[in-house]
């Protein structure tokens, strides 16, 4: 048993359509490193070009935001769940809107 990483719907397309995966990792940074090694397309959605976690992607170990723990150095142990939670904006006419004009 390792650390379970839950992949959110918008990013599943970059992760072989998987909704979760298990990795062996002692820290959050290590787990995300393993994940983006396995699924290369995920990297640019999770990290900036400088390798920093993107500000519209939050990462939680169990139910706690890693920004309030030790960020990417937050330790993980077998049985922990890492959740990747990106911001989503949808509410009504997502399909049509995203291809046409933005509106407020």
């Amino acid at each position: 048993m390792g650390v379970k990483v839950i992949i959110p719907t918008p990013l599943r397309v970059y992760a072989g359509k998987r909704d979760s995966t298990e990795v062996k990792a002692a820290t959050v940074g290590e787990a995300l490193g393993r994940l983006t090694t396995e699924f290369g397309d995920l990297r640019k959605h999770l990290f900036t070009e400088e390798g920093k976690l993107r500000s519209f992607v939050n990462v939680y170990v169990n139910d706690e935001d890693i920004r309030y723990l030790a960020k990417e150095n937050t330790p993980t142990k077998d049985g922990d769940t890492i959740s990747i939670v990106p911001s989503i904006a949808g509410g009504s006419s997502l399909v049509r809107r995203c291809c046409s004009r933005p509106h407020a």
Partner: protein
Amino acid sequence: MATKVQPMTGAPAANATTLSNEEILRYSRHLIMPEVGMEGQLKLKNSKVLLIGTGGLGAPLGLYLAAAGVGRLGLVDFDVVDLTNLQRQVTFGSSDVGKPKTEAARERLSSLNPDIQIDTFETKLTSDNALELFKDFDIIVDGTDNFPTRYLVNDACILLGKPNVYGSIFRFEGQVTVFGMPEGPCYRCLYPEPPPPGLVPSCAEGGVLGVLPGIVGSLQAMETIKLILGRGDSLAGRLLLFDALAMKFRELKLRKNPNCPMCGEHRTINKLIDYYEFCGVRGEEAPDSNVQVPEITPRELKSRLDRGDDLFILDVREPHEFQICNLNGNLIPLGELPRRVHELDSSREIVAHCRSGKRSAEAVDFLRKAGFRKILNLKGGILAWSDEVDPSVPKY
């Protein structure tokens, strides 16, 4: 654009201290619950809730809040009902297609509950009108569908000190929480910045299961009613995640960021800003016009095909879209193009298309950079083909 904040308004709401006999009967299932009772029902009757958006999330919100007897409901939307809305926006019926959403919603909600006041604002929510619109309401409910408006709603709520009942959805996943409570976090605490436009899922990855906004909007309605009644534990400080496919609810801790530029100890944002600029979306046409590529119109393509010209039609949509309708093209989804480029013959003339012309513009741009010279983008995609050449091809 002129700012229109004068509501189309119903009967004025006075501060009610009693219910009529008819209201007592209507709300009897509330009144016999000790958690609501006469006191709670009067709180509902004297409450004022503003719904931003009357679409997918706005539908169950409007219906349940009107049915529950929220005394004054404000509806903000500038959109018109279209056929693609009816798969999930259950306030509207087929006969509403073409009507302004605020108007259609008002008719439906006032027939559901004639005793409440419904104020409609058929306008875009902007930095110029948001504070004016929000100030008369107790609770703001965010049911919008884009990042600029979400940050605008958040900031306006924080500036005015009003709760913001937040819900958002994507395909079969939803997020719900309450922002803007005195000690609670705000949207910027959760997400300091929006995603850059290029990383927002494209229409190929969009779509939403029709029931999902019904569930998420109903959760927002429940949180709104709890706030009005002052009952139970609000979702403030907790982010509720719902995955409809797995049928799982999860909950994450949501903390107030002491350095939040909006709700932190040292606020650096003291007024509403330009949210399109903040979200990297400029102007009305910006998202569609960032790639300039050679184009062919549907009519030109039709006449060239009729003439028997040797054209290779490249369809860069997804397989499930190809099943809806196609132009007898060769399917290579945009995402697969880089590794399947060898399947294309650069000596032949290629016309790339998608649904609206946006993804295929990216494909043409990519192929030109890969050395293809004889390649054109079908202007307006299948939608324009259906309008201008063959109306038997369905639009979606």
